């Protein structure tokens, strides 16, 4: 229970809101684990582990549908207003983003299968090295975004949005490094292109974490900060305070 979910006169309303909150945390934990396992499978060239990640994506999809059902049920039954309404809308959006994080983790796992199965030539370790490094940063973003929601913590949400700017810069550096491999040996172009797609999947996960940060600001302050720059968001929050 937290201030967003408890305190209703009708206690079953509290319980339904808490269930919704808990489900978000469950999906959040699940997709973080999927991401870590997908990247690890790539690092360790573990095709079986990658296939397990791919299969487990269905679990994320099922939870996504379950939360959607709960949201519909809550809106129809409780006709939520104010912070309850914002909480439910926020959950709906966060879960959509988390489900897409799961999809991106699946793509990374599929990359592993593609690289290391079917007796094809495996890519050089240096080509995929950036993915492992970047995934640590991405997981940190994701963890902060989920915690920002759990704790309704605006400072953490701002931090995640700020990290997305760093991520964009790091992503471009990775692309530059990869292009040098093609310049040195054009035969690696196939592996490089697929690695770019893997990096792109990681970069998208960072984007989803940033979205969650924005939803948390909406949840707490009722401000829609999508499509706004970090400076504008900070200015708006400062003015509001």
């Amino acid at each position: 229970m937290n201030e967003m979910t408890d305190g209703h006169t009708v206690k079953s309303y509290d319980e339904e809101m808490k269930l919704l909150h808990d489900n978000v945390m469950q999906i959040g934990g699940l997709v973080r684990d999927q991401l870590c396992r997908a990247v690890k499978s790539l690092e360790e060239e573990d095709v079986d582990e990658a296939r397990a990640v791919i299969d487990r994506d269905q679990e994320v999809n099922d939870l996504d549908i379950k939360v959607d059902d709960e949201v519909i049920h809550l809106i129809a039954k409780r006709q939520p207003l104010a912070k309850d309404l914002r909480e439910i809308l926020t959950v709906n959006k966060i879960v959509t983003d988390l489900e897409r994080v799961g999809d991106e983790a699946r793509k990374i796992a599929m990359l592993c299968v593609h690289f290391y199965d079917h007796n094809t030539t495996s890519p050089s370790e240096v080509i995929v090295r950036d993915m492992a490094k970047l995934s640590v940063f991405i997981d940190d973003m994701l963890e902060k975004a989920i915690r920002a929601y759990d704790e309704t913590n605006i400072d953490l949400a701002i931090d995640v949005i700020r990290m997305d700017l760093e991520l964009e810069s790091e992503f471009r550096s990775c692309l530059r490094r990869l292009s040098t491999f093609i310049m040195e040996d054009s035969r690696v172009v196939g592996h490089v292109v697929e690695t770019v797609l893997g990096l792109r999947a990681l970069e998208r996960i960072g984007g989803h974490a940033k979205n969650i940060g924005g939803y948390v600001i909406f949840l707490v302050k009722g401000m829609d900060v999508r499509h706004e720059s970090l400076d504008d968001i900070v200015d708006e929050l400062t003015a509001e305070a």
Partner: protein
Amino acid sequence: MTLQFDSGTDLPGQEIGTVNEAESTQSGAKVSRDERKTVGGITHPDPRMSCRDVNVWYGDKHAIIDVSLDIGKNEVIAMIGPSGCGKSTFLRCLNRMNDTIDGCRVTGDLVMDGQNIYDRKMDVVLLRAQVGMVFQKPNPFPKSIFENVAYGPRIHGLAASKTDIEEIVVSSLQRAGLWDEVKDYLEEPGTGLSGGQQQRLCIARAIAVNPEVVLMDEPCSALDPIATAKIEEWIDELREHYTIAIVTHSMQQAARVSQRTAYFHLGDLIEVGETDQIFTNPTHQLTEDYITGRFG
């Protein structure tokens, strides 16, 4: 028209608690006077009625405390709050309905068209024609449908001939969305209609005297969802002709029909604002707690 005000609803004095103490409790939490100061814009750029520092007592009970609020032309303003918060009392101040309650005392300025409605020279019967009222429980006169609507214009001298009266009755029933259902039964008793039809008959009766303001005190609480939808449709359509102030316990109804919402709590006006803002992101914690069902 005095019959119109014999509402049969609970007298506000019966539901008001003593609230003139420095602090009160709600859900166990102390709420100080400072925390109950009005937030949001009490003014309207084009006010039909202007209320300033309104206080109401029922004997020793201080039911409304320093409430100031404009009611704008052609707006629907919803008044919400828990039972006993003073919203109906405030509504009843707007056409001096509280005059009928023994021991009720009203102070402050309530101005309409430049005149204080509590001025001694104010013609209360005329005021109540200009500021009509629809109650929680439909209260048609024990007369025919036609006579229910014709009574007001006739006693106020609004019609010179029988034809004029008929025109007013037809147009009022049409505006209230009841004409098609009763046009062949105008001589039947109004009390024989369904609850929803009776309420629309009362609305037709109120607008037949061409009021500037229509006050509605929980007009749909005794109606089914279809009858409620028809009343809400009427409110939306007639906003261009009238100013409407509605007291409702239904948050969803307030959100659907009004442009501004005022939240009352223990006799204080806590927050006023655009309805969209009040129901998605209220400023005051008490408003937030009430509309999310955390007390009340």
